[in-house]
């Protein structure tokens, strides 16, 4: 089972996070300050750490993260912050964070991102190593940037290809619109839901052509998932 360490000082938020993560099937340990968080992260093995940027006491989120990285622990860290400023985000990632989420956030967003971090941690699959991704009968050549479904060659625009590649790398997982936007457009997301939906619609139209069973599914209230059709 995936073991998550949550370092968050606000009791309401931390309880909500705990409930959401447990429902998602994670094993959760709660800690409410940086010092204890650092001790826990060093002494125990966790798969992922969720870290609040603002923590009471001498060791705040970034300080704790810096100390953690300095002690050689590479557990993926997702930073939660009330500060959305771009440079805050950059600072968080520079201090050793792997992802950054601004409060207030939706829990579906949190769990989707944690899934992505968890997968990144897993050893690369055979498909990754031979520079080809295969999901069902969909095959993506990462070097030639070409896509086939069965015998059918699919022509994608560069942005459509980038979307598909990201979805394929997270195949079987829910990917939120925000994650797509950040990964594919390199800007952080500003609630432009319908815009992404249109892009996904076009992509879906191309890969799930007539006669094929649908692979690119919309998860209501969450995002999208690319999975093999069986």
């Amino acid at each position: 089972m995936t073991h998550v360490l949550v370092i968050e000082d606000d009791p309401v938020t931390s309880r909500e996070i705990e409930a959401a993560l447990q429902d998602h099937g994670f094993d959760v340990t709660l800690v409410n300050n940086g010092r204890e968080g650092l001790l826990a992260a060093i002494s125990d093995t966790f798969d992922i750490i969720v870290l609040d940027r603002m923590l009471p006491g001498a060791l705040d989120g970034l300080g704790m993260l810096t100390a953690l990285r300095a002690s050689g622990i590479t557990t993926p860290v997702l930073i939660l912050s009330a500060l959305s400023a771009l440079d805050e985000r950059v600072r968080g990632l520079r201090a050793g964070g792997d992802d950054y989420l601004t409060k207030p956030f939706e829990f579906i967003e949190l769990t989707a991102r944690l899934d992505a971090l968890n997968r990144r941690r897993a050893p690369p699959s055979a498909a990754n190593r031979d520079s080809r991704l295969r999901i069902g009968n969909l095959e993506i050549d990462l070097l030639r940037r070409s896509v086939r479904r069965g015998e059918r060659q699919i022509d994608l625009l560069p942005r459509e290809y980038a979307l598909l590649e990201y979805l394929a790398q997270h195949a079987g997982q829910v990917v939120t619109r925000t994650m797509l936007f950040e990964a594919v457009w390199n800007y952080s997301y500003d609630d432009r839901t319908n815009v992404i939906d249109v892009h996904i619609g076009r992509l879906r139209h191309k890969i799930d052509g007539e006669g094929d069973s649908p692979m690119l599914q919309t998860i209501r209230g969450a995002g999208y998932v690319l999975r093999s059709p069986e």
Partner: protein
Amino acid sequence: MSYVRLSEIPRTISFRTALMFLALFGCSFFALFGYIYWQTTGYLISEVDTALHREVDRQTAQEPALRRTEILKHTEQDPEGRLPYTLFDSAGTTIAGALSTLPTFSAYDKPAEFFWDKANGHDRPIRYLVHKLDDGSTLLIGQDIHDIREFDELLVNALVSGGSLLIVVGLLGAIALGVSARRRLDVLSRSIKIIVEGDLSGRLPTRGNNDDIDRIAGVVNGMLDALERLMSEVKGVCDDIAHDLRTPLTRLIAGLERAQRRSLTQKEYASAIDTAIEDAKGLMQTFRALLRISEIEGSARRSNFTLVGFNQICADAVELFEPLADERGMSLVFKPCEGVDTVMGDSQLLFDAVCNLIDNAIKFSPDGSDVEVTVSADSNNCGISIRDPGPGIPEEEREAVFRRLYRSESSRHTPGNGLGLSMVSAVARLHDMSLQVHDARPGCRVDLIGKAQNA
């Protein structure tokens, strides 16, 4: 509290003014005293001279024998030599009188002074007159002016001590003035500090005597009144926001209560929950947008500005919206500029702003029309203009559309939270860019223009 450092006093205006007046007063004091000194001593000496002349005249008029007897008698009666009258023969030997030798003199009948070394060792200043008598003898009429000299000295001493006293008292006064001014300013600056720290209801203390500081304090208090009013207006905006959020919140609660009240099937419950979640997410989005705007408005993000290219930002935004426009049979025409397209800015914020403008343009334009995104530049400025053939924005609403949560009548039925243009306006302000809505006849053109920066 009221401790004032001595080194601070010379810097106060009051102390400097007091010092200047002390110098002025000192000068006039010395001038006046000098005049009095000069007049008084001159008067006393001229009195002596008159007496000497009178005595010479009297002696001249007498018989030589009588004169000699009188002088002898006079000398006898004046053992202290207060008026040392002496008669010398033509050879300069004393015939009668107190003096043994004739002092050197420049001219007859002209008052002069000499120091008389008396036999008893005293040294007295004598003012005298030498007169050549008809019988060949010389008459010296003198007067001890020791008292006058002493009086002079007394006057000078009075001048010096009085002057010193004046300076000391004046300096003390200046220091006292400096201290009091400093204290008063300290009280004022403490009050200002408290106000700066956030207590906007605080005011500067006044004494009610309408002096200079009182008047400045009055002006500052007036300014604080205006500031407080503005702050309460800002609070009014917050109240508006709260009001605008109440409607969706009420709808959300009503929906949930309705679901609770009616006995619903499993499926109906699920749909009620879905509706509630959608409503709540809508609220959250509004909140996020509001937070974002205030973060932009309140931020010092300029420190993170880098050179960003308008062409690139617009190309990204156009590329993002192209499919959306396409769906409605519209085309998004992008015209990049040839010249310098770089400005100092935050690419994320500028991208968001352009996206908001394009989103609006598409939203309000009829199906099948064209929306133009143009980047233009001259030697100084670099701008983005977005033109749509929609209904346009009436002149009187062009300022209002940038207000938070403002929805014009015509846009009530299109989806949105009334925050998009506020966000654009906040970004423009942060970047010192001008943001203007123009009439494109037909439609609307929004220009975002900033200062061009060469890479």
